[in-house]
Every structure is written in C-alpha cells, then in structure tokens.
C-alpha cells in the first residue's frame, strides 16, 4: 500500500525509541560541550552562594549546635545547583522551537518521546558534572562529608530529583514563546522553593507560617535527605531540630517518591504538550 522508502525500517518500536533518544541525547550533549560558558554561568550563582554563606552569613546562623555550618550548607547548595541546571531543559526546548529545529524533528519518522527523553538525559548528565564541581568547591571551603558512600548516595538521589525537575522546566519550555519567557516564568517559582527551604538556615529559625511551608515542600525533603546522608551521626535532639525527627531512610524514600511523582505528572504533561503543539 505505502510506497517503499530507504529510511526507517519497521521494527521494534521500543528499540527505535531508545535509539532515537540516544541520538538526541548525543546531539544535546554536543551542544552543551560547545557552549561550556553556559554551564559555567549556571554554576556561578551556586558558587557565589557557597562563598557568601560560608564566609559572610555563616557565622550568624544559629540552631546548629556542634554541627559545622559548611557541612550543613553544601547539601543545600547542591540541591539548588541541581534545580538551576535542570532549568536548561526549558531554555533549550524553547530555543529549539523558536529556531524551527523542532519542526524538522516533527517531520522525521523518529519517536516523538525522544525529543523529551534526549533533552532530560543530556541535562541530567550535565547536572552530574555540575554537582561534581560543586562538591569539589565545597571540599575546598571545608566541606567534609561523613562518608564517601553517603556522599555518593546523596548525589545519586539528587540526580534522580534533578531528572524529574527537568520535566517541569521542559513543560514550561514547550509553552513559552521564547527563552526569556522561560526565565521569567520559572524564577518566581524557583526562588521561594530554594530559599524557603532548609537550604541555608534551619527551618526552626523561621516564622511559623513560613516554616509550615518550608518543612513540607519537596526541596526541603531532598536537602534533608542529602544532608542526613552526608552529615553523619547526630543526636536525637539535633535530628528533631534539623530533620523533624525523621530517619535517613525515611527522608530518602520520601525524596524518591517526590521525584517519581513530579516525573510522572510533569513528564506526561510535557509529552502531551509536545504531541499537541506545532513548533
């Protein structure tokens, strides 16, 4: 019935979707590697925050007992970095749409999901590199994780969370008419989520109304999970103060559930949006 063609051979649909995702990831990684300044600029503000809080504000922060503030700070900075870096999923998709590259992709017999999976995979890889740099900066300013294993688990957890966060930005990128709009639309959300959290100060020092929000939002949960993995043994009084009395495993499981939930909800919204729009 249909004409013969040289291109696409019918075959395993799933296998082809994987292949397309790998091809798109490769393209996106190449682009990132050719614009290293972009990655550096994304890391600039977390590095500034590290220095600012470590050396300027750190001495004034109360409620930590015998815990060294730099060990408290770096997990917060790492989560902030992960979220900032995930933002690229939104910017890059908006740019591809604006330049017509998405139109080219939509006219090809590729798996449509690969545009999103390739984007998210590339930005998660870039996140891995970014987090590594932030950990090195942290080590340079005195961050001492309790164990290497704890640090590794914390970083893996963070990558899972970063991956699902990419889908939130991807969705914004598929709605926004340009890169500036993505920035304008996401900043008012990122700012309260990263600052009204346990990232820089214990939530016990906040006013009650703010604490109610800060204690129950996912960014705090993930920061606390990473912090609990890297900070080592704390007294039960400190655990109540810093982690609302929750154990490391409980925090890790909650974080994974948040990541899964965000990924499923925003992932499916983004797929729907991609399938229903042109350019």
């Amino acid at each position: 019935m249909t004409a013969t063609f040289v291109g696409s051979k019918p075959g395993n649909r799933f296998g082809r979707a994987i292949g397309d995702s790998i091809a798109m990831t490769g393209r996106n990684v190449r682009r990132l590697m050719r614009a290293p300044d972009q990655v550096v600029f994304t890391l600039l503000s977390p590095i500034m925050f590290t220095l600012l809080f470590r050396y300027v504000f750190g001495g004034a922060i109360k409620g930590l007992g015998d815990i060294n503030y730099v060990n408290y700070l770096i997990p917060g900075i790492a989560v902030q970095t992960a979220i900032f870096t995930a933002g690229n999923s939104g910017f890059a998709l908006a740019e591809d749409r604006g330049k017509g590259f998405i139109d080219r992709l939509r006219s090809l017999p590729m798996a449509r999901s690969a545009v999103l999976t390739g984007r998210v995979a590339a930005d998660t890889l870039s996140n891995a590199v970014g987090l590594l740099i932030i950990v090195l900066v942290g080590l340079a300013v005195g961050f001492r994780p309790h164990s290497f294993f704890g640090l590794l688990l914390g970083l893996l957890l963070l990558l899972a969370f970063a991956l699902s966060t990419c889908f939130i930005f991807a969705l914004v990128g598929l709605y926004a008419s340009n890169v500036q709009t993505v920035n304008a639309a996401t900043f008012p959300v990122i700012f309260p989520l990263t600052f009204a959290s346990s990232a820089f100060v214990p939530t016990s020092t906040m006013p009650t109304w703010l604490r109610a929000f800060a204690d129950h939002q996912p960014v705090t949960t993930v920061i606390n999970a990473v912090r609990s993995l890297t900070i080592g043994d704390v007294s039960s009084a400190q655990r109540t103060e810093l982690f609302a009395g929750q154990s490391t495993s409980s925090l890790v499981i909650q974080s994974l559930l948040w990541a899964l939930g965000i990924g499923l909800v925003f992932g499916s919204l983004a797929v729907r949006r991609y399938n229903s729009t042109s350019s």
Partner: protein
Amino acid sequence: MAQAPTRSGSSNQSVAVSVDSLVKTFGGTVRALDGVSFEIPTGTVLGLLGPNGAGKTTAVRVLTTLLRPDSGSARVAGVDVLADPEAARRVIGLAGQYAAVDEALTGAENLRLVGSLNHLGRAERRQRSEELLEQFGLSDAADRTLKTYSGGMRRRLDLAAALVARPPVLFLDEPTTGLDPRSRIDLWAVIGQLVADGTTLLLTTQYLEEADRLADQICVIDHGKVIAEGTAAELKAKLGGTVVEVTLSNSDDAITAEQALKGAGEGAPTREGEVVRVATSAGPATLTEVVRRLDAAELEPTGLQLRQPSLDDVFLSLTGHGTSADDEMPRPKRGRRKAKDVS
C-alpha cells in the same frame, strides 16, 4: 539520486500528492486554508504561489504532519497523512523557511543526526552524509559548525538534511527567501537536479521567477483559496499574448495615458504607478497604435516596450495586488495558536 516511489502499490501512484478541500482556521476567524485542493503527478514540480499569509505555509505544514486541518484530506505517496502521520513522515522531506538545522553542530553532524533519526545504519548515514555534502558543494565545510556558514550554505545544508532518507516527495517552503541572487541561482541549480532525478516536489514561493523557472504546474493561492492553476505558459496566455508596457515620467501622465490607450489593445489598460500596460495578441500593430495615441495626447513616455507577460502580470490581474502585498492576513503567532496537531 533521489528516487521515485515504486509504482507497484495498489493505490494510484501516478499522483504523488493529493489535497482535497483543506480547511484550517486559526483562532476561529482567520481562515488560513479555505477549501484548498490540488494534485501533484509523480515526478513533477508544483509551485504554490501566493503573497505572505496566503496559506502556502499552512498547506505545507498540513502535508508534512506538523498541523492537523479542520477538515479535508491529504495523501502523500499513497499514504493518508491524517490517518497515518507516522507513515507519511517516512516518505517526505521538508526544508525551507521553518525547518531548521542545528547551528552548534557541524554540517556532517547535522546530516548524520537526521540519518540516525531516520533509522539508517551507522555506515549508511556516514556515506549518505558524505554524498550529500559533496553534491551540495559543502565537503570543505563538512566539519565546521554551522555558525561559520553563509546564508546560502545553510540553506543548502537544510535542503540536504531533507534528502538524507531519499524521500520520494519533497516539500520546500520558500527555499530561497532572504538569499542573495547568487545563492538563489545556486540553489535553483541543485533543486533542478533533484527534479531531473525524479523527485516529486512541492515548492512554495512568493517569487514568480522561481515558480516560472522550477515548476511544471503552478497553483496560485490567495486568502486560503486556489485562484488559478496551470502551467506558467497557460497562466500567461490568460492575459493575452503580449503586453505593451509604457512608462511615463509621473503618475498624472500615466492616468492620462491610461485613458488615451483605452481600446488600443485587448481589454482595458492597467496602471500601476507610472506604468501602463496594454494586453494584446497583435504585438507590433498595437505598439504602433500606442505610439500614435501617446503622440496625439502629447505624452512623452520614458520607457516603452513590447514583452511577454510575466507571472507578475498574471498575479496582478488575478488578485488585484502584487505578490509583495502586505495587506494580507498575518501569519498566526508562533507558539500562541491553539492548533490541534497531528500526533
């Protein structure tokens, strides 16, 4: 290089593209396509001609599965585009205005990426990429990122990207818009070669010269409707054989001349600024008559010529405005429209 589709299918393969009564509205009021129908016989070129906002791009977007029409049907190489968009994507190539290449990648990387997304094997996509770069005169620039390419090189690469999977049907949406004359002529040569090799081509353009030069058949659309169809020669013949064109020094003189020349040729003379045109089938005799009348009216033309009508003349007489008219409906804003697309 590009090959025609096989003729063994049970469907009618002598028609590569058929479009029937396509309607697409944007925002409920703008009828970008208002019942457009046309056919393209296999191995031929259809020039879709019209001013900005006429509906050319919308028609291409429907045919390339980027946009779902409100009603109507479209078939490409035997595939129902609306029922099976995925199959349609395997038989088409799209290049032009809005289908882009990646500026951060090299020419070769761009082509290999498209090959990979067309599911060509590794060796095949490498070979195909080299072939196309060679064919389009881009071999020397193969390993440079597109940031270093000129506008003309980028358009050639864009066209090459559309050809990676050797699609039997190719859509070029204003392929030379914005190019300098030299690059335009280069690109025409490349397109001409594709057509000679049997590719079916739909070309949208606002340049009459381009349609005249490349297209077997021309379909003129305006306000979402087909207003004329035929070969370039047929369309020109509709205007009468030849045109006497008189240029006056100012438009007041031109208005006087328009009055004076009534009845000199066939139909009423037309005026555009300082230029008055008289259509005729008896060229030299009419020219003599025109000169006599101008003389009698004491008008001194600054230019006077007898020529074949251009497609511009055709377009003017069909639409009442030139091809560069900007009083058209605007192209719907990108990213804002509530278009329901083919998924």
